[in-house]
């Protein structure tokens, strides 16, 4: 008995140690983010940051209104989700419910590999192919705009959303499908009335994960969104989301300046966004569980 306990102690210590290390690092990151972003509130008020429409951080005096950046992030995220989610769910339903097994064995891994496509590659395609095409076909001032970035971002999140939603659909037990068929339901009725609702919590999680990825994505928007810090009024306006602002400006900012702290504050906002989405996802998961047990 003593031997067995001895054997347990070491693994437990290692696991505890690893977990504590991970947690400590996360806490320090958060602490650092907050510590570096708060000094900006000595220069301007929170309200000015959140509602100010002018982002001129290098002017004298500087102006740190982040509303255009927030609007940029929100608009790209929402538009890409709007484009990607219906497509992803269609794909997921096809793969899980309608696709011949052999085709699925090929299709699903391919889809998952597409999910690993470096975003810089997509950004590059956006700059060199999609933007010029949009510019020419729609007769625009520039193809580097909200629509362009959202399409690319949509392409980027389809594999994630479709793949996770497919997992969720195919993990619905066949028992339930059988029950539905045995009542005289068609395949379509079974999919829409039984399988899809049963998989809904997982599907919503898939969508939220996609949205989180879109909120945090930097390279695609940096390269393909046009980068102008104004609140977009149409699909064809250039936008500058929080992420690309940080990426573009951090390198040229004196450490400790107002601009530096403002960029950290933008990072904090992003963190709060994704955290809120995460909380929302957890709530949905909890509600879904209520029906399943």
């Amino acid at each position: 008995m003593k031997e067995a306990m001895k054997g347990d102690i070491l693994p437990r210590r290692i696991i505890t140690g690893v977990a504590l290390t991970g947690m400590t690092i996360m806490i320090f990151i958060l602490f650092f983010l907050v510590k570096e972003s708060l000094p900006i509130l000595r220069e301007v008020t929170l309200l000015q940051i959140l509602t100010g429409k002018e982002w001129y951080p290098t002017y004298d005096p500087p102006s740190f209104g982040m509303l255009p950046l927030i609007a940029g992030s929100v608009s790209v995220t929402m538009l890409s989700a709007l484009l990607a989610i219906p497509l992803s769910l269609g794909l997921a339903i096809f793969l899980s419910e309608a696709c011949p097994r052999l085709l699925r064995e090929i299709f699903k891994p391919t889809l998952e590999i597409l999910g690993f496509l470096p975003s810089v590659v997509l950004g590059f395609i956006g700059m060199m192919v999609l933007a010029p095409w949009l510019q020419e076909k729609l007769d625009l001032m520039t193809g580097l705009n909200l629509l362009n970035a959202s399409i690319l971002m949509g392409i980027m999140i389809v594999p994630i959303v479709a793949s996770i939603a497919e997992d969720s659909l195919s993990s619905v037990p066949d028992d339930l499908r059988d029950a539905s068929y045995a009542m005289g339901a068609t395949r379509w009725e079974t999919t829409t009335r039984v399988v899809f609702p049963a998989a809904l919590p997982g599907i919503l999680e898939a969508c939220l994960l996609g949205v989180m990825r879109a909120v945090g994505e930097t390279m695609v928007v940096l390269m393909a969104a046009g980068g102008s810090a104004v609140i977009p009024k149409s699909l064809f306006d250039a936008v500058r989301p929080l992420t690309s602002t940080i990426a573009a400006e951090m390198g040229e900012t004196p450490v400790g300046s107002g601009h530096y702290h403002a960029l950290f504050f933008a990072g904090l906002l992003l963190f709060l966004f994704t955290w809120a989405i995460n909380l929302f996802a957890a709530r949905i998961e909890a509600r879904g569980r209520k029906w399943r047990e």
Partner: protein
Amino acid sequence: MSRMKFQISNLNLYYGPNQALKDVSIDLPESSVTAFIGPSGCGKSTFLRCLNRMNDFIPRCRVEGQVLLDGTDIYAPGTDVISLRRRVGMVFQKPNPFPTSIFDNVAYGPRLHGVTDRGTLEGIVRQSLEGAALWDEVRDKLNTPALSLSGGQQQRLCIARAIAVQPEVLLMDEPTSALDPMSTARIEELVRELKTKYTVIIVTHNMQQAARISDLTAFFLLGEMVEVGPTQEIFTSPSDRRTEDYITGRFG
């Protein structure tokens, strides 16, 4: 003996190259309980699933022979499988309620077949739950999750769901094998009531169960239907040696 609901002749079923049912011929009378008994893997569940064509979903599964339901071959080309399954309902081995409310579970079939009026649905749900001897236990919580019910209640809910579309036949695939003795007793009692309205065909592992609830018993072995007859006879004086060996517990 009463009118025959199902008349099956020379039914062969293959999973790819393997033959799972060999030349099964049997007639199943209306408004009675027929039990299929036999050891695991003998083909009784497979045979049951032939009667509402649930085997259609299994790839490489091939059926030969004739299955007449009220005189019409359900394997004839052009058969409307949807309306067949509406006439021949099914209850499965493991209770499989949908992860929705009790009400929505029972209302699933009627809604599927076009009933939208709330009052009508409520009537059907109540009748079906009463028919499945579950109404008194759930009348006050129709909107709670079906999966919060006990296993036995869930199985009775599945029976209610199946009878909500008013089928003519009820196929039951070992409906009590996942349940405790009390719940099993309730389901058995229910089966005896159900046969006044429906033709019940039940697969069971449990010979005592077959003896208790069925009018007719068929013994399956290795894909063959060895013997069928009135339950009393099968259990007291079987004509086939293999049946006798099985029911006296020499194997199985």
